[in-house]
């Protein structure tokens, strides 16, 4: 079966349709990492998007449950140059995985050209459908997606200390795992949790997670978040970073085509050391909007954008990139350690990974 990928700028690309036979529409984005499709496909930050992999071969090492970042495939559709369907050393095939989750794949697509288009015209709405069908009506790019991926109920993991509240905008399992590996007790809260509910849990710190969509879509929650970050030592990751910066007065804007990959150089402004980071975001905190209370902690080497901030008085730091890696370089785990250093706490964490 042949399929068509149509972009809202009028361009279209052909490919072979694999898996679920359903049409999908979503914002088209691309990921440039050469490994990590297991993690990317299950990262809630990609919820509802159509993902294009720049690396042309996908599926060679199969899918293993242990590598998944959430229970299901988050993107609405998957675009690849070539899907591997041969024997595997372990795990199930990417094809079977997508079929199980009812997510279509289009293979044999000229992904480099798709990416060049996105690079020129920015991310845009796109439709994947079987060849020959008429185009559906274009929907606007969805920006308010957090309700679709946030926790349905409050759950607690681990039983040691400190006790960290994970505010869930669509967190990746490896963030929870990074906390558990450091001996934390973690309670996961839906993003709609109230201040009173939080205070019942005797938390030592808060982690504002990653998640999909526009930070501005949660403007109605910023006052609460500012209050929390004033109360608890906090760490913001990705969307969590954007929300905390916004809560303290910064504004955000959308990048033309975002940063999604495993090779984004960021500089630690304290040490001047550059390291590679794992990234997945469309929005950034505007540089000139930063209030005096915040200073830049990390900066992107290529485009100079803000990659992390710290509050000048309060104990909170944020990062735009993903210190938990998965996928991508694992050299920013120190961000978690810096976070723990902000927590006044009797029994210091002993098991730094």
């Amino acid at each position, binding site marked *: 079966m042949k399929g068509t990928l149509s972009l809202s700028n009028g361009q279209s690309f052909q490919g072979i349709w694999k898996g679920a036979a359903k049409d999908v529409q979503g914002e088209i984005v691309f990921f440039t990492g050469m*490994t990590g499709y*297991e993690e990317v496909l299950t990262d809630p930050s990609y919820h509802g998007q159509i993902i294009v992999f720049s*690396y042309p071969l996908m599926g060679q*090492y199969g899918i293993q449950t242990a590598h998944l970042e959430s229970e299901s495939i988050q993107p609405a559709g998957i675009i690849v140059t070539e899907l591997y369907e*041969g024997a595997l050393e372990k795990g199930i095939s990417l094809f079977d995985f997508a079929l199980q989750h009812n997510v279509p794949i289009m293979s044999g697509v*000229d992904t480099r*050209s798709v*990416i060049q288009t996105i690079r020129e015209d920015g991310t845009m709405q796109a439709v994947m459908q079987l060849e020959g069908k008429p185009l559906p009506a274009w929907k606007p790019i969805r920006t308010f997606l957090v309700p679709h991926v946030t926790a349905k109920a409050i759950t607690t993991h681990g039983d040691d200390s400190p006790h960290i509240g994970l505010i869930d905008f669509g967190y990746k399992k490896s963030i929870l795992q990074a906390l558990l590996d450091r001996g934390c007790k973690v309670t996961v809260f839906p993003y709609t949790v109230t201040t009173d509910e939080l205070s019942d849990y005797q938390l030592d710190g808060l982690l504002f997670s990653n998640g999909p969509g526009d930070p501005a879509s949660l403007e109605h929650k910023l006052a609460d978040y500012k209050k929390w970050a004033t109360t608890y030592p906090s760490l913001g990751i990705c969307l969590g970073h954007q929300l905390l910066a916004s809560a303290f007065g910064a504004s955000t804007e959308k990048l033309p085509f975002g940063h999604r990959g495993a090779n984004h150089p960021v500089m630690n402004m304290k040490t001047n050391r550059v390291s590679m980071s794992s990234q997945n975001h469309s929005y950034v905190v505007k540089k000139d909007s930063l209030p005096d209370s915040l200073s830049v902690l990390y900066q992107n080497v*290529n485009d100079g954008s803000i990659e992390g901030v710290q509050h000048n008085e309060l104990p909170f730091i944020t990062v735009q990139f993903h210190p938990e890696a998965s*996928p991508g370089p694992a050299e920013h785990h120190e961000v978690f350690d810096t976070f723990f250093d902000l927590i006044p706490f009797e029994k210091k964490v002993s098991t730094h990974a």
Partner: protein
Amino acid sequence: MPKHQEIKKVLVIGSGAIVIGQAAEFDYSGTQACTALREEGIEVILINNNPATIMTDETTADRVYFEPLTVESVKAILEKEKPDGLLATVGGQTGLNLAMALTDQGILEEYGVKLLGTEIESIKMAEDRDAFRSLMKKLNEPVPDSEIIYTVEEALAFANTAGYPVIVRPAYTLGGFGGGIASTEEAFISLVEQGLSASPIHQCLVEKSIAGYKEVEYEVMRDASGTCITICNMENLDPVGVHTGDSIVVAPSQTLHDKEYHMLRTASINIIEALGIVGGCNIQFALHPETSEYFLIEVNPRVSRSSALASKATGYPIARLAAKLAVGYSLHELKNPVTGTTFASFEPALDYVTVKIPRWPFDQFSEANRKLGTQMKATGEVMAIERSMESAFQKAIRSLDMKLDGLFLPAFSSWEVQSLKEILTEPDDRRLFAMLELLKRGTTAEEIVNLTGISPYFLHVLSKLIHSHQDLSEMTWTEITQDRLAYAKKLGFTDQQLSSLWNVPANLIRTQRKKWGITPSYRMVDTCAAEFEAKTNYFYSTWSGSTDQRESVKPKVAVIGSGPIRIGQGIEFDYCCVHSVIALQKLGYEAVLINNNPETVSTDYETADALYFEPLTSEDILNVLEAEGIDQVIVQFGGQTSINVAKELEESGITLLGSTSELLDQMEDRDRFYTFLESIGLPVIPGFSANQPAEVWQAADDLSYPILLRPSYVIGGSGMIKLNSDEELETYLASAQIEYPVLVDKFIEGKEVEVDVLSDGKNAWISAVFEHIEGTGVHSGDSISITPPLNLPAKMLDHVCDVSMHIAKNLAFTGLFNIQFVCQKDTLYVIEINPRASRTVPISSKVTNVPLVQHATALMLGTEFNDLGIHKNFNGQRGFTVKAPVFSHIKLPDLSPALTPVMTSTGEVIGSDSNPDIAIQKALTGASQQLADLWSGKGSIYMTAETANDTLIGEWTDKGMHVFTPSELSFDEWMKRSDKKALLSFESDTPLIKKAAIHRLHIWTRPETAQAFLGTLSPRKGAFV
């Protein structure tokens, strides 16, 4: 951190002659480093005695010293030049060893020279086994258990704790001699006994075997401020057990999931950080396919063959940036030269795959041991870039430039399945083709996975090719639709392969294919998977998607490269291609280069205006030419590889600059060539072409022995043999695989001379005349040669020049050609005319200071001969220059070191001086450490019974040499002496010389070669020029 301002002058150490394991990649890294330093306004002084390199051009370094790479020479240069810094990490192991010796002897300190880049302590930490192991222990980085042992008991004690299998590596034996892997105690004991006796110091390293693990490499860079990045990771198709230089390698890794990829990346960064490397570093890991457990195999604290491969695979110029880091810059201060907008502190993202396949010399050396193991045996390699693994493999296989039937090795068609399977478990250079052949015969991928330990992924790729090949072969041309043809092309099948499947001419397929609009697109290697706009002109073809357009305004000419380095077709042709590119640019053309060798300067994307990384078949070349709209190509500089496609390119309407393919054929077809010689009044060596054995016998009768047999169109004298009797001829005809027609010539005893001629068909200029020290019967590539000639009578030299000019004026040829002569008394015979650049062109250019290839290119494009500004022959050549061959026999067990018409050397060095004996001494001591030791009075020599006589012994002992003969000491006893250096054995091939060769000794099998060295022990006095 900005650049160190105090560094104004730097000495760069090159890697010297090409040997197996240290080859053209160091011309690439050295050239990049020199260029990077000069960009910073630093004066660059270079020591390297390998003439066939771009690195040693005066345009690359400010001053070049063609001196032996010894502590003494470097010291003398430091004394004279007084540089501020020394860069030793771009000269391979040779560079590192010299840096360590210079530091240990306090010489760097004495001259106040700073070692740039990685500190010596870090280098030593990485090189010293014990220091390295204890550092890794501290970092919790696992290294395989190992122990140095002197007795079987110690070995058993180790094996009992570590468990089997265990690898035994005898100390100081090379070529893997005496070692191996044991899985049982019984086998282990016998292996240890064998190893201990093979080791001159009775010492072995026993190591827990991790054979069968996946082998994965990372190329890492670090700057002085501690920023670490990994440029590329690479996965070996061959599991641990085969040297990575002998492994098929893909980049990036294919079967590692993200957790494994980053586990090893994190380990790499921890290691490079702990070592404190500044610059590039290569780290090799073994990864368990099921448990993800890993071991560290090796760390190379310098740029390497792998870093050259990684640079070409990603577009990231590692050596160039390593040189910038060495003079103080940080990675984030340097721009990524590919995008021009992003910074060097990032990790390339690829949106294609690359496949590297090594090129081995065993098609030329059938008697050598071709088993692959822990010692590297390949002389070169090819790389292919594509967006699918199947087509990347097809491209890489084509690029090998071997005699193949598409995916198959013709010789295997008659092999039994069982014999093919033996190659799977005991790998040799043909394992890839054994797998393909077995898949064709129905062996399952699963069985091959079990026999080889290769990941199922790679077997899936190979089976997909074989299954498609079978599907395609069951179709007929009339059934072929546009979709089917497009599918075949996407899998990498050439029109030529399809034409033999469908029994139609390749041209017909090509024409129909173009009618259907099935042509390749060309994609850019941009380091960032299209995320950012890039300006590079580095391209590869792929059979789907659109093309990344390249802007061009000037007229264009394509230069065809020489492919992988092999015996007889070495780095000299890469040198020539690069010079041709430079000339084209100077003349106002855009130079488009096509080549597939990842090691070289020609495939640096900064060399040509556009680089196409492609196989060198006529189809691949024509596709590029059509996409670029080019109709003029230069084939003179890519060795036999580019000459071989000349005819087909011309038939497709392409203009060959310099000469027609008709003329090339006239020079290479023996009958036509002899007719040509006779037509211009030159004597020809009596000889015949023979189409069958009976004709060979007839020719032998007519000519009388000795005779010389050879095939047409050969590289490096491959298949050439001197036969002295009916018995020898009978044995040869019975044993060898002979491809008729063969040429049978009278073997002429005499002196060989060769000449490089620059010509436009009317005017000609002789750049240099080289006299071969050894008489006929030794391949020109293996003989010591000297220019200007030393022992040639003036009258004969004039005659050589006259005949050369006469030939030039009678050939409709523009450019460079090479003539090989033999002088027998007063008669001068032309042995052959090579209508292309030759091995000696870089030397000719360097000794005369005339850019021969650039002039040749200019002539081809219409520059008048008189405008070149060269007049007197040899251009007033300064002093004598001697070229000495360098061999890699220690890496090629069972290959005879006897000099014959078949070339066996892998590289060469030169030495120059106004005194010929000193020039010879510089060349010989630069070519061989044993000769350098002997020359300084260290060591003994041995003469076999047949060779030794009182006169000869007297000649050597008179010069203070310590000579042993069988009457005093048996050969085996002498081999136990620590001062053994050289063996004289002039009789026909004996097992002794092979044994001596793999023990790294110098071997003289021709009296002339030995005499040349003897003469250097008391150089003659007086003026010579």
